């Protein structure tokens, strides 16, 4: 249709107007009886008590453009792996300060796996001789805790980062920004799941002494590597970038290997570094996450925008941040994921939702791209039809379809990208997050994987804050 000078976009010269309806079904039926094309919305009341805030925010004349800008910046951001550095150099992280996943929290309210990870990190940094001592010091408030997100970083599960740990550095060339994420330790008993036994701490030392320097040499000598392009490719190879990273990990390894093999290190160390990296099918997660972090950072801070730029959990609270409300967190108690358990573990062993990895869903992949990864249902429960439905349902709460991240089975439709607080509140549809499950007792490690949603109350709270800013 061309733009004509007719008023009301040519409404009165429409050959046979078609109609969308919300509300009384009778009217849709009456239209069908007239051979009119009708699309009925399956309208439901919004989350309780939000009518006034919704009207206010939706009437905000800035919103449409602010969201368009935020969305455009989000999808335009690039993500290249440009460096690998220790946290003290990358983030200026001071000795005695520990980063963690999710919104801010203190020791008192920290859950088992987060406490376990703090203990492990204190031991790793040599700030205590044993776990009891570490726990005592932590409880006494000797150390400083800070969310990864406050330093443009992200950490999976407990997300604990200490100054000596190595971090991948990703750069967004378009918006001139950096984002950081720790190296993946593999599966099983690992720090990010709250384990802190000797094998965990020993592995962290090996990663610091051997793996980090080799990766740094590789990236510096043969990088940078385009992570966003790997994300786009892996979605077409059965990964969703959160709970399934197999193809992505192999593609990343393909990029890193030449530089690793020629690194200045002993052949034994190189062999072990390559074996370690190749054996870990979540190796790529720690690159996908900061890539998504760069995208959401680019969209952040636009007045009037209702786009969600952070979803993160610390094992106790689930927090979101929104482009138009700056650095304020809107939190609620984290839900416990539902899914499949390893070995003898069961629902009672699972800790509430934890980790910054929901940044993948915030960026339009992970649970939002589940249709691209039907195999995922074997790890998180559900069936293939569910996977297809999950992705398609997310279009109801997102601002657009990602131009690069595409889902072959949906005819290469872009993934649902850019969660809109307004749409979540209106539809009551909560973002679908795929996640790993940590044991609730400190030191346990991973107990399973599954699906989870944010607590609903984050969204009306964010909406109310947007309403006060109109």
């Amino acid at each position, binding site marked *: 249709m061309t733009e004509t000078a007719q008023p009301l976009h040519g409404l*009165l010269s429409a050959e046979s*107007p078609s109609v969308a309806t919300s509300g009384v079904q009778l009217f849709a039926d009456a239209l069908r009886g007239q051979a009119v094309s009708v699309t009925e919305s399956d*309208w439901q009341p919004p989350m309780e008590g939000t009518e006034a805030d919704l009207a206010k925010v*939706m009437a905000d004349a800035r919103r449409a453009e602010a969201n368009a800008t935020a969305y455009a910046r989000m999808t335009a951001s690039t993500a290249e792996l440009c460096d690998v550095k220790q946290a003290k150099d990358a983030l200026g992280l001071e000795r005695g300060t520990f980063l963690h996943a999710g919104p801010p929290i203190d020791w008192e309210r920290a859950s088992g796996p987060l406490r376990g990870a703090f203990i492990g990190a204190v031991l790793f940094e040599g700030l205590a001789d044993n776990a009891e001592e570490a726990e005592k010091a932590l409880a006494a408030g000797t150390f400083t805790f800070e969310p990864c997100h406050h330093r443009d970083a992200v950490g999976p599960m407990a997300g604990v980062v200490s100054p000596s740990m190595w971090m991948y550095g990703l750069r967004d060339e378009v918006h001139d920004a950096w984002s950081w994420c720790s190296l993946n330790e593999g599966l099983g008993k690992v720090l990010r799941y709250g384990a802190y036994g000797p094998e965990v701490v020993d592995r962290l030392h090996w990663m610091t002494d051997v793996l980090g320097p080799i990766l740094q040499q590789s990236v510096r000598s043969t990088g940078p590597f385009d992570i966003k392009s790997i994300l786009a490719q892996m979605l077409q190879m059965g990964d969703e970038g959160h709970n399934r990273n197999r193809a992505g990990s192999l593609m990343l390894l393909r990029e890193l290997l030449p530089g690793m093999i020629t690194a200045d290190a002993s052949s034994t160390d190189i062999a072990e570094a390559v074996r370690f990296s190749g054996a870990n099918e979540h190796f790529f997660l720690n690159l996908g996450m900061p890539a998504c972090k760069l995208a959401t950072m680019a969209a952040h801070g636009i007045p009037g925008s209702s786009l969600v730029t952070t979803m993160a959990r610390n094992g106790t609270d689930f927090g979101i941040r929104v482009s138009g409300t700056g650095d304020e967190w809107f939190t609620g108690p984290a839900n416990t994921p539902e899914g499949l358990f390893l070995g003898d573990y069961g629902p009672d062993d699972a800790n509430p939702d934890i980790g910054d990895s929901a940044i993948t869903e915030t960026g339009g992949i992970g649970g939002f791209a589940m249709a691209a990864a039907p195999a995922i249902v074997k790890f998180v429960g559900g069936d293939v*039809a569910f996977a297809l439905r999950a992705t398609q349902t997310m279009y109801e709460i997102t601002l657009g379809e990602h131009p690069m991240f595409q889902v072959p089975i949906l005819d290469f439709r872009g993934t649902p990208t850019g969660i809109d607080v307004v749409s979540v509140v209106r539809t009551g549809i909560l973002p679908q997050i795929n996640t790993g499950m940590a044991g609730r007792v400190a030191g346990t490690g991973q107990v399973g994987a599954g699906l989870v949603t944010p607590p609903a109350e984050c969204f009306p709270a964010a909406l109310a804050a947007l309403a006060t800013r109109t």
Partner: protein
Amino acid sequence: MSTTHVDLRRGAYHDSVTLLQVSRTVADVDGVEAAQVAMATELNVEVLTGMGFDVPEGAGPNDLVVAVRAADEDAVAAGVAAAEAALSAKSAPSGGFGDAPAPRTTAAAIRAGGAEIALISVPGRYATTEALDAIGAGASVMLFSDNVSVEDEVMLKDAAARADVLVMGPDCGTASVGGVALGFANVVSSGPIGMVAASGTGAQQLMCLLDAAGLGISHCLGVGGRDLKTAVGGRSTRQALAALAADPATTSIVVVSKPPDEEVLADLESYAAGLGLPVRWATLGAGRPDLTTALEAVLEAEGHDVPEWPKWVADGDPAPGSVTGSLRGLFCGGTLADDAMLLAAESLGDIRSNIPLRDDLALGSDLKHDGHVVIDFGDDGLTQGRAHPMIDPTLRMERIAAEAADPSCGVLLLDLVLGYGAHQDPAGELAEAIRDAKQGRELPVVVSVTGTEGDPQGLTRTAETLAAAGASVFLSNRDATRHALTFLGSAS
């Protein structure tokens, strides 16, 4: 001893009209004595309690209550099963393997269907959000929902003007765009008359009279009952006039409205004068012509004969002027009520109403008075938490029975609106109520039927059903009102 079942389903929303139909289905099950399937709004909880059901604590407006009382356990189970079946039949189809779920918001539905128009009929407190959503998606809006604040109305209309779309409403009952009837609408032929309507039933009455006169309409654009009030300032009317003036299918325009504010009318008249085609006014008010008379003037100006309007006059009614007692007008259409009241007041003087001509004539909350009374059952105040009386006539039916038992009631004046959206067989129920009302007393009943032969219910068929019950039936609301007045001996 009967058995009762009440269960609460959280977050299972269905619209009130659908639930009304489901409740009726359940009530029809053998052995079921009482049934109500409703959202747990304050009003519905009251109704349920009144019916003797205990509503669980903490039930809110987003929760569904299924309440059934029946002779025994089996009948209760059958009732609940009928409710389940009716509810699932009403739910949106879930689609096949891997199909996209149904759109959940108005804008999503607009995008999915490439719609030019959004018809929004969600409860009033959610309507602003949906309308803004539709405007943002570039569609014009027919906002059927009522109980929208005037501030929100102005905000919506300004947003619509910026987006070059039209907001028809709030509380817009009827519209017709390019031959597509929206909301409550009659099946009328197409023709050169464009209509702008700040009144739903007023527009329906005019369209039906036009149709009976053999003239058709190009479009009927609703603007909402308050558009010609100072607070709204004719915002949608202006847009609608401009659009119709630019439409090649429209050669003249009629504006129909409940009593407008004078300065808004004056502004619009001078705006309309520059549009290059005749714009005529059927705007109610003291000293201004009634709907039928205004329409007759339009016909004459178009060079069209004024026909004799269809009527079915009952025999056996009392002689003119012989009835003592007062006029009782029970209307579903607000503008029809206004039209009748303005006309009747000329001879009867003061008429009490819930939509009074003067503030001091307002009825109390019990809606009772010994003198002349006209009630609009479609008014916002009587539709909160329930469907419009054109869909759910319960309240008016109860009142008809009450009037029949009230010796101060001298003549009953009723309206009945046919067409899409209205009750599928309104005449049958109403005829029964009229028969009951006339039982054992002399009570003339006059019905103003707004409808066409093309309507699903059929004008003649409907009129004959009512006439058989002893009512006099008129297509013209004016003629119906005048006929009712003759009994009171004051029409001369």
